[in-house]
């Protein structure tokens, strides 16, 4: 099969028909001239790509000038591909369909009157007879909407006038319309390629000459919104983010709050399928130009209608009407006095209170290195560790993390990284790195799938860990129960390795005093230090909270039946702030402890083989070393260890 070249100028332009496009056009012109009769002539002319030959000059990007007085450039460039490849609905129009012929038929042109979009133009039709066309009905619609033409004409912006004098108010929202890729709405297009048109060509190539491709692309592009959600937000932001417009009309900062919502963030990350402004603010089946103010009883976002708007077939069809109670335009800084604001404040305070002391410990630890402070008793412990290692059973006793725990740790690490990489772009959707990161996962759709299933695996792993802990706990309780066969659950509970005992609290205080140079000797810890126990508690609590809130948000249609819509706002706040705490704790402190701390750099071997590097072991786990030595009957030949 041959692939003519001019068809490749546009991805959606198919090939074979275009390959003979020149010939077909020529033939069509001759047929029109010879047989068509006078009434067909305008149609043929209108079908020509550039009947008035304007592109001979206007195809040049540099055809422009700069007006020093106004500080503006006047660019007369018209993308030739728009007309030649029919890239949009206006691609078949002659320039004089919009511009006044008398003004532009002479070079240099006379002063050109701004285009009136309600002007009547002439369109070619399948019959070959021109049809009169105008956008004047749009003006009628606008007159009945919240965006009344007279109101739009009066707009004044903080950046000065956005349009030149007498320019059409349509330009506030519209520029040259483009067909979107038909394959976005109809994926079969990609697969079928030329075959879509080959079948039509049987009749339409010669016998019933119609530009099938144009019509297919035109209609296919109407199967999807004309603009992506992001582009639509940009359109709305022209007015709804302008301080002057908002102040004069007492409008809320709707676009700013939209892009902080789930839908808005998805839009920022390039998702085409998320809800945009029109999805909510235009009643289903109505025209975008008929958008009504929220207090209009007919508005789709009026309090009486908003639930049905949320539950439309393409959005949340299975949800309870309560889902509409969700604050879609929630902007926390402006939501003071609400429960959402209070919850966020609580999380922020908790984050600072939990992260702060841990961070302080790390910084004080580094300070010890900087001032060159030596830990008393290190030589004795080093010697003891050496003797333990020489014992055939000793090395095994110094393993702090069993294979089971190491596997759990690595699974947790992998899932945590995946969850962060796929979740944080949503939290910081407007940062430069967010969209490229999401694209690395194949787009937001895939990123969400990965996020959800990583979360599910994490929750399953968490339950697995609970089962592991439970059986360990029961077994320990039986051991401690003595010969009567009664399990001692209380003793077993407080002897759980991660149980934070009063001694841990006491030693933590001693450690702080030591690090602040208020105590001479560093306290020694057992197998797990209090910091590790607190860290474990954080993971335990965080996984539960993130899992529960994540499931609520993922299954919003189900959870809306037993929760208020506000619960989604609360769940979102809890989910994101808890995730942030987890990330800063792991990303700053845990990474320091296991990678960058001078005693373990470049990586703590504990995560690989269960052995903590000896320097770190001696510094922090002196009690454990003594305990292992006692168990093995190894005599401590040095000075007794001072607690």
């Amino acid at each position, binding site marked *: 099969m041959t692939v003519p070249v001019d068809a490749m100028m546009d991805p959606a332009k198919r090939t074979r028909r275009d390959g003979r496009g020149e010939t077909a056009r020529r033939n069509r012109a001759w047929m029109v001239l010879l047989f068509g009769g006078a009434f067909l002539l305008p149609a043929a002319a209108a079908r020509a790509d550039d*009947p008035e030959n304007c592109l001979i000059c206007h195809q040049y990007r540099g055809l422009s000038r700069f007006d020093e007085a106004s500080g503006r450039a006047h660019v007369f460039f018209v*993308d030739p591909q728009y007309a030649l490849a029919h890239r949009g609905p206006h691609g078949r129009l002659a320039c004089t369909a919009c511009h006044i012929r008398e003004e532009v038929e002479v070079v240099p042109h006379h002063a050109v009157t701004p285009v009136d979009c309600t002007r009547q133009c002439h369109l070619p039709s399948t019959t070959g007879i021109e049809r009169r066309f105008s956008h004047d009905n749009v003006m009628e619609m606008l007159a009945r909407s919240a965006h009344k033409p007279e109101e739009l004409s009066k707009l004044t912006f903080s950046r000065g006038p956005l349009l030149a004098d007498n320019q059409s108010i349509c330009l506030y929202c519209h520029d040259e319309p483009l067909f979107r890729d038909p394959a976005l709405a109809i994926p079969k297009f990609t697969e079928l390629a030329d075959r879509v048109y080959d079948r039509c060509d049987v009749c339409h190539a010669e016998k019933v000459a119609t530009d099938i491709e144009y019509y297919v692309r035109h209609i296919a592009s109407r199967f999807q919104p004309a603009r992506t959600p992001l582009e639509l937000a940009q359109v709305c932001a022209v007015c709804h983010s302008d301080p002057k417009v908002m102040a004069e009309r007492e409008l809320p900062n709707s676009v700013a709050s939209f892009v902080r919502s789930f839908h808005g963030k998805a839009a920022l990350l390039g998702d085409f399928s998320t809800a945009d402004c029109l999805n909510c603010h235009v009643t289903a089946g109505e025209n975008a130009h008929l958008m009504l103010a929220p207090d209009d009883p007919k508005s789709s976002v009026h309090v009486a209608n908003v639930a049905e708007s949320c539950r439309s077939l393409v959005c949340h069809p299975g949800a309870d009407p309560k889902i509409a109670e969700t604050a879609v335009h929630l902007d926390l800084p402006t939501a003071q006095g609400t429960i959402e604001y209070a919850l966020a404040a609580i999380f922020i305070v908790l984050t600072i209170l939990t992260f702060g002391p841990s961070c302080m410990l790390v910084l004080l630890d580094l300070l010890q290195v900087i001032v060159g402070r030596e830990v008393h008793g290190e030589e004795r412990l080093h010697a003891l560790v050496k003797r333990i290692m020489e014992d055939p059973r000793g090395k095994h006793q110094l393993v702090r993390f069993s294979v089971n725990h190491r596997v759990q740790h690595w699974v947790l690490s992998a899932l945590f990284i995946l969850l962060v990489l796929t979740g944080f772009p949503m939290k910081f959707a407007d940062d430069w790195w967010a969209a490229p990161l999401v694209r690395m996962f194949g787009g937001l759709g895939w990123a969400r799938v990965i996020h959800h299933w990583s979360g599910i695996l994490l929750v399953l792993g968490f339950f697995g860990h609970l089962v592991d802990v439970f059986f360990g706990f029961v077994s320990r309780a039986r051991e401690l129960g003595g010969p009567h066969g009664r399990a001692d659950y209380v003793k077993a509970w407080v002897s759980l390795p991660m149980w934070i005992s009063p001694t841990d609290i006491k030693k933590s205080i001693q450690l702080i005093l030591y690090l602040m140079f208020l105590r001479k000797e560093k306290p020694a810890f057992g197998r797990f230090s209090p910091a590790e126990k607190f860290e474990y508690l954080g993971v335990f609590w965080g996984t539960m909270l993130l899992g529960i809130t994540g499931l609520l948000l993922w299954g919003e249609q189900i959870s809306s039946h037993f929760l208020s819509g506000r619960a989604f706002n609360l769940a979102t706040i809890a989910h994101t702030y808890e995730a942030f705490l987890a990330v800063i704790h792991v990303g700053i402190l845990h990474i320091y402890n296991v990678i960058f701390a001078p005693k373990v750099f470049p990586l703590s071997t504990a995560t690989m083989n269960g052995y903590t590097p000896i320097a770190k072991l001696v510094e922090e786990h002196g009690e454990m070393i003594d305990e292992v030595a006692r168990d093995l009957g190894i005599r401590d030949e040095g000075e007794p260890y001072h607690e």
Partner: protein
Amino acid sequence: MSSEAQRKIFRRIWAVVRLAGRFLRNAVPRIYATAIMFVIVWLTFLAVRYLVTSLAIASGPPPQIVALPTRLDRAALREGRSAFAALDAAEHPRSPLAHYHRLGGWVQPDTFNDCTRSGCHNPLPHAKRKEVRAFLNMHATSIHCGVCHMEGDRVPRPLVWYGLDAGKPGDPPSLLQAYAMLTAPDAASMWKRDGDAAQKKLVHLLNSAARESGDVPALARLAEHFEAYRVGSKAFDQMLTDGPAALARHFRGEYGAKLALRDERTGRPLLGHPNTGPAVAEWFARKDTAVGEEATKLLEAVHPMRRASALTCTDCHRTQGSLIDFPKLGYPEARIRSLIDPVVFSMIEHINAGRPFNLPAVLGGAPLPPPDVEKKAP
């Protein structure tokens, strides 16, 4: 020097080395710990700042939403497309408000043109005569100011291509080279003779052309298609037939290169009036106060090579005696024909003479007659 003295010196050196070693052994961990401490403090500061601002400070929409250009102003002229559009995340970046037609891109900024980078002239410098100002600015995308505005007697003018990326002399633009390959009179025998090597070269040229033209997707796709077919196949032959017409659509002066006068001594492009730095500085220092003859003198010092009157269109767009040696500059025959097409320069004559020029229509427009007299080269 006695051996004792030598030993003494050696001992001293050794002591210094040991001291340095001890110092390093002590200092390296401390420097490392200090660096890590700063990193942790900095990250903590960022985290806490985010937490506080997320609740305490109301902010507007992010740049992705509001960086929509509202006007084509001076800054937009000097910047590339991405800075200008600021909408890379959009599927179809919007034109600036008040501008209906899609721009898609912008004229390639020439950061090596001394006339504009000095701050004296803007990149669209022609503004006086309504009849021709836009046409002349159109040429500014592919021709340096000096080609028309600097003096010189040689016919044709000594010209050289220079790249907009480095301002250095280079080969003719890839687009012209690719077009030359496709339209050469001996193209058929070349494809037969060189086959795969020629295909490789063409694909490379087309990819380069796509890049030089500002990442034009159509050219990149064309390269992909030329690469996909086997030389000698029916499909490839069809590509060779249709290729010139497809390429010709991209002759819009977006080559990633411009023509400039060649400095005969160095062979480099003349990108401004030579040795005028002090004169330019003086002009800027005194331009607000200088009037009349003083201003004229200052400007003369800034423009020592300026022509009394600029070249006109038909000095170059003519069949004989053109000031531009098109073949020598790598223009293929087919492209040259369109540049010296009588329709083009008769149109120019009409406009230059201040006569109304009616656009030729496809179905009814007869070609305009050639100009009355063939203009002689200056």
